[in-house]
């Protein structure tokens, strides 16, 4: 059985697609056959972040409406042989995302031998976001250390606990993970930014990782490479740690402390 993971946040612009792309890539780099699905019908962007926008022929809605098969629609990732992208429709109305249709697609993907299905949720709490989380076994809640993002994350957690299949069937609940992104240790130290412990204390779910604010994320999206592939970058290591922890490894947190530059560093800093 494939494991279904929704990457969601409520608020927009916090790093859902960036995180979906890097997380799915990381799973594939570890040898797991993985598919990442864009649920943002009408505003698809996962294709751009994965760098496969020019290879999109069919999309999720075509598959749901039986206008195309999964084999024709899935796009093979340029970096990993065992990673595939299922793009969202750019033109159709998001109501085309029927619950039965989504369930059928997920079941078929499971039969095709995918071990992990990563669902990149749209922002908001409307139909598309609910469809992305309905069949999830696990949820990665992407949160910025900022008041509106934390509040919206709490809201989406409530929706997972009310509307997911697992919640409705009364079985084992969806396993929730907190992913704090755009973290700036320097500002946390200065008392200007919520710390990850603050965020965790408020949301009360286990932490799966911290992604530092970094210039490499923009470089990565400019080029259509998931940030995990930017070699030697903090962000790449941080996402690799997230994948490791997801797979059950016990890894210490990195990039959470700010070290004050020494005098010499301050003098010779600058480019």
């Amino acid at each position, binding site marked *: 059985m494939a494991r279904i993971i929704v990457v969601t946040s409520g608020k927009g612009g916090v790093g859902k697609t960036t995180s979906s792309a890097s997380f799915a890539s990381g799973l594939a780099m570890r040898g797991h056959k993985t598919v990442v699905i864009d649920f943002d019908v009408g505003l698809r962007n996962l294709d751009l972040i994965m760098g496969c926008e020019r290879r999109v022929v069919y999309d999720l809605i075509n598959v749901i409406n039986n206008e195309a098969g999964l084999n024709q629609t899935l796009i093979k990732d340029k970096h990993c042989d065992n990673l595939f992208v299922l793009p969202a429709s750019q033109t159709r109305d998001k109501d085309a995302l029927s619950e039965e249709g989504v369930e059928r697609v997920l079941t078929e993907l499971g039969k095709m031998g995918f071990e992990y299905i990563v669902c990149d949720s749209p922002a908001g709490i409307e139909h598309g976001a609910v469809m992305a989380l309905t069949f999830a076994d696990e949820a990665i809640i992407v949160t910025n250390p900022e008041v509106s993002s*934390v*509040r919206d994350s709490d809201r989406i957690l409530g929706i997972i606990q009310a509307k997911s299949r697992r919640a409705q069937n009364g079985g084992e609940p969806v396993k929730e993970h907190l992913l704090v992104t755009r973290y700036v240790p320097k500002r*946390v130290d200065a*008392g200007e930014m*919520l*710390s990850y412990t603050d965020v965790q204390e*408020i949301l009360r779910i286990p932490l799966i990782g911290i992604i530092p604010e970094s210039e490499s994320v923009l470089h990565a999206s400019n080029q259509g490479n998931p940030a995990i592939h930017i070699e030697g970058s903090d962000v790449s290591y941080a996402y690799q740690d997230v994948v490791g922890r997801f797979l059950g490894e016990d890894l210490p947190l990195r990039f959470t402390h700010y070290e004050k530059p020494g005098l010499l560093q301050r003098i010779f800093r600058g480019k």
Partner: protein
Amino acid sequence: MALLSFLFNSKPKTAIAAKERLQVIIARERNGFDGPDFLPALHKELIAVISKYAKVNADDIKISLDRQGNLEVLDVNVVLPDVVPGS
């Protein structure tokens, strides 16, 4: 003062305010948005009871629900009218 803050580069520590505000609003929202629904009824009855003994307006009674740590605090604030001497 501006010079001092420039020299020491002191910025306000606002993260604490963020945390406190979030704790309050999220506690309230988890409890089903506007708090327990008996609040308006309680407000009305309090006015009725207090009016028996003192002249108060509806506006003189303020009820608010807050959360401090794991405690929910119901804050009822009644402003009694000034007693005019000799009346």
